[in-house]
């Protein structure tokens, strides 16, 4: 039921943007520090200040001196931290749009009727293809259930045989396919580099957690691209609907970079399910907006 468009081309466009961006993140370290002050224990604060001083950051901002909301926003917007996170936010939007392009919201809205029963035989339907030795099965199961119970408001029937015996409209999830692509060569290089730096830092008596944190902020973002495909059958009409969601890692908080490949995979799958969730919400008539918060500040007193 879902129209097939040039999927590979569209996906490649997003991947190209990610790859281009990857080379531009080297200046990410310094501007983070002022933002992370409010969320760090006191002992790392001094360290942050020392690093700021040593690296002569281009912009030093003390949030408390901002006279007004507008002034505060202008100050924040001028930092390279914000430029950086803005690019990541743009990726999120690109991937969300990609998900919307691949699916027909109106058709989904007509196809999925809230309160109707839905189930899945995980054994036959679930396929996970990720470059990791870890098992993501339970995580994906939880995400799928959340998608159909919380978002689509369908009624989850755990026993597929019981589901099939029910009268009236009912759905069966016939396929859940999750695939994540990562850039292997780059990952190996980053892991190698991380080990060397951490080992050297320990020899010099540096705190491992702080070094790790700095590495986390450097241009060591691991790129991953997740595709989630879910096929749903209407057991009454025998029509099928395929939902496709795409996702990338997009952490934009104080620790902006995912240094670990498995975490990048986890983030990318989460993002793909987020995009599917927003798609389903739109399909059932809700206006939705989702974004990563790049800064939290107390209200003016």
């Amino acid at each position, binding site marked *: 039921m879902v129209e097939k468009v040039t999927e590979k081309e569209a996906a490649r466009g997003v991947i190209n943007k990610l790859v281009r961006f990857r080379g531009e993140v080297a200046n990410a370290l310094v501007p983070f520090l002022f933002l992370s002050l409010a969320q760090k224990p006191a002992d790392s604060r001094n360290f942050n200040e020392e690093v700021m001083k040593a690296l002569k950051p281009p912009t030093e901002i003390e949030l408390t001196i901002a006279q007004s909301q507008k002034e505060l926003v202008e100050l924040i917007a001028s930092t390279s931290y914000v430029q950086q996170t803005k690019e990541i936010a743009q990726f999120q939007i690109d991937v969300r749009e990609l998900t919307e392009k691949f699916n027909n919201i109106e058709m989904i809205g007509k196809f999925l009727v809230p309160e109707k029963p839905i189930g899945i035989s995980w054994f036959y339907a679930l396929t996970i293809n990720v470059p990791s030795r870890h098992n993501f099965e339970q995580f994906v199961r939880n995400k799928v259930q959340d998608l159909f119970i919380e978002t689509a408001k369908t009624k989850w029937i755990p026993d597929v045989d019981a589901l099939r015996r029910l009268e009236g409209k009912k759905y069966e999830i016939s396929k859940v396919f999750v695939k994540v692509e990562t850039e292997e060569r780059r990952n190996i290089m980053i892991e190698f580099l991380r080990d060397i730096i951490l080992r050297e830092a320990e020899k010099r008596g540096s705190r491992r957690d702080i070094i790790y944190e700095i590495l986390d902020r450097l241009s060591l973002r691991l790129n991953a691209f997740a595709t989630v495909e879910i096929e749903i059958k209407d057991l009454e009409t025998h029509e099928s609907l395929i939902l496709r969601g795409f996702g990338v890692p997009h952490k934009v908080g104080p620790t902006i970079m995912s240094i670990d490949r498995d975490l990048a995979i986890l983030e990318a799958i989460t993002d793909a399910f987020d995009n599917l969730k927003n798609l389903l919400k739109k399909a059932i008539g809700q206006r939705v907006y989702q974004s*990563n918060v790049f800064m939290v*500040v*107390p209200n003016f007193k």
Partner: protein
Amino acid sequence: MRYFVFQTEETKIKPGDKVRVLVRNYEIKNNKPEFGEKILEEFVLEKFDYYPEVNILVIFSPANFSEQELVKKIGQGEVILQIESNVS
């Protein structure tokens, strides 16, 4: 609190919308990647400011956490803002 987010699409939110702020953690625990999610706060949107020249949206919430509370509640987590409302 004031939550700063990028808003590069047309602002479609309005007072009365439901806002949920989530804190997500992606961690390696016992040598396994784990995902955790908690609700930081939920509220009905009353006030927000949008600065189109820098595409920054500031959402105001009724809560006002102290620095210590923020450290405890957010830590190294990822903060997600979700706003939704029914189309009338």
